[in-house]
């Protein structure tokens, strides 16, 4: 049980917590836009934390190439995840998915 094991465990725990909060938001929030708001940021951060934890573990085991590949997956997710959420929200708004009735402001009216 070294310090590196502790750091890896903390990274796993934080990543699992952010992914759990994203999933709870997807299940419980009232609206598609609220669900997108919950999922995009939380899954991005949680996936990054878990992938960096896995990369540290691979470096501890002496597999440098696998660590580089895990960091590449992390960069790919960091680029890809917000783009997908943005495209989905824009397409759903133009398709006519209604806002939640408790929404305060619509900053894209008539589009």
């Amino acid at each position, binding site marked *: 049980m070294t310090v590196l094991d502790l750091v890896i465990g903390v990274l796993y725990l934080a990543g699992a917590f952010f*992914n759990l909060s994203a999933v709870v938001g*997807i299940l419980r929030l009232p609206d*598609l836009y609220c669900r*997108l708001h919950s999922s995009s940021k939380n*899954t991005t951060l949680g996936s990054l934390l878990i992938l960096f934890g896995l990369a540290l573990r691979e470096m501890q085991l002496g597999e440098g190439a696998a660590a580089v590949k895990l960091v590449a*997956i992390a960069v790919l*997710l960091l680029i*890809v995840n917000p783009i997908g959420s943005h495209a*989905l929200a824009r397409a759903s708004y133009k398709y006519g*998915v209604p806002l939640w009735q408790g929404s305060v402001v619509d900053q894209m009216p008539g589009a």
Partner: protein
Amino acid sequence: MTLELVLLVTLAFLLIPLLIRLMRGPTVGDRVLALEVIGGIGTLMIATISLTSQRTVYLDLGVLLALFSFLGTLVIARYLERGLIS
């Protein structure tokens, strides 16, 4: 390796609420969102499995899953927005 097995079980339990949302999402966007998040969690699970089973080759499958999940989301969003894909 125990830590990674615990992480794998936790990620597997996170899939259950996403499947519920996939079944009863009121709109198409909810279902696409659930599929996208399932793809992201599946990528994490593949990366974890490639560590626990000591096979580095499986990481390429993780890259492919992330990329094709994103492409599917983008194609369905474009179809919802314009009514045609190309």
